[in-house]
């Protein structure tokens, strides 16, 4: 009983402290960083979507490690599931896990649209909401639908992992080109006074590489889960 009282008291204290800290939040919203990004974001990075500008230019160091964490997660999942690199599809006498016909028909209709939406989000990361990560996740969803249409689909996981490694290497190398052109690592490789139009190229290239990385990583994780019980 006393334990419960202590728990409730602790929750009450947390609640009061949360409300007290709400007043401090006022200072946070008056921050100068926001105004700075509003004024200089488009000129500095060539991206009218300021989230992409921050993710791929001002704070690129964070994004690199985010992509790296996905890579580590994939290797962890594959190691734990002891997934065999040699694919072996055994023939089962009673396969009851047939996908419902309605789902298959709808998936066939939705698949190209989803793929197109994914590529749209990746390629327009500098203009519209979204970017490499979101677009990659949508493309991965489209690919996963194929496994529901045909349950015996074969996948070469070692090929996926190899491509993911090269994509990650590509992200790091693209981000480091600026060391040669600007003398400063992990930023846009175009010159500082280049027109905004040409600064796109860097954002689009990085978005495509991150999209490939994310889509293939999610694909590999799904395949490992698909084979787990079998």
């Amino acid at each position: 009983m006393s334990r419960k009282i202590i728990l409730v008291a602790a929750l009450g204290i947390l609640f009061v402290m949360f409300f007290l800290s709400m007043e401090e939040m006022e200072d946070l919203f008056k921050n100068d960083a926001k105004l700075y990004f509003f004024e200089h974001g488009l000129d500095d990075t060539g991206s009218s979507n300021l989230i992409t500008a921050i993710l791929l230019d001002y704070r690129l160091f964070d994004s690199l490690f985010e992509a790296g964490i996905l890579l580590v997660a994939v290797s962890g999942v594959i190691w734990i599931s002891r997934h065999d690199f040699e694919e072996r599809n055994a023939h089962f006498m009673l396969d009851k896990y047939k996908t419902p016909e309605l789902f298959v028909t709808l998936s066939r209709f939705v698949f190209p649209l989803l793929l197109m939406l994914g590529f749209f989000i990746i390629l327009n990361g500098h203009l519209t909401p979204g970017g490499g990560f979101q677009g990659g996740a949508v493309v991965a969803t489209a690919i996963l639908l194929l496994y529901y249409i045909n349950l015996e689909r074969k996948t070469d996981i070692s090929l996926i992992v190899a491509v993911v490694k090269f994509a990650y290497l590509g992200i790091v190398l693209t981000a480091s080109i600026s060391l040669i052109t600007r003398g400063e690592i992990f930023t846009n490789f175009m010159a500082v006074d280049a027109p905004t139009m040409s600064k796109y190229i860097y954002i689009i290239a990085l978005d495509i590489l991150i999209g490939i990385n994310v889509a293939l990583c999610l694909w590999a994780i799904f395949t490992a889960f698909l084979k787990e019980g079998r």
Partner: protein
Amino acid sequence: MNDLMWIDIIAYVLQFMLIAIAVVVVLQKNNSTIVLLVVAFSLVVSGLYVINHAPDVAIAEVAIGAAIIPLIYVISISRQREFIVLDRAMDDFIISNNDFTGIGYVLLKRFTDYYHLELNICNDPGLCSWEAGPDKVICEKTNVDLIVSRDEEKGVYQLKGKESSLLMTKLAQMAEDYDDIEVHTFTERGFGE
């Protein structure tokens, strides 16, 4: 001003829906219902993100929370309910008269129905290897739960299940009625061995 008020009302409704869905997820027992509720949760959350001017996060939430996670959960749940049998006897134990009417099938079907599992039978002998001896089986490529084989000397069928599986006691109890069926266990190769 009028528009702003509507958005506020929608935001409050969505926040109360979040709490309701979270409570129902904890109380639910059926796995597939829980998956659908998790999808509803992420859709509501992404709506709140859009109202709070974060469309980037909303797209990520929809793609991950409402598409990829349920797809993975659906596959995992269907695998969890599966009971895989490897048939090495290859005679009328499972299939007789070109139909699933053999005594072994009837027994296994009764057993899996008792635990609400889905029975699945495979006769590909390459799935497991017996290199380490008859009692130590390595099934790396698939997760085989039970191996059916025929002992020619004694003239009985042997059902070998994992030593770690608690279901084997019940199967042995069920097989007591049959004279020509024996239930044994095999040891698996441990993790990382």
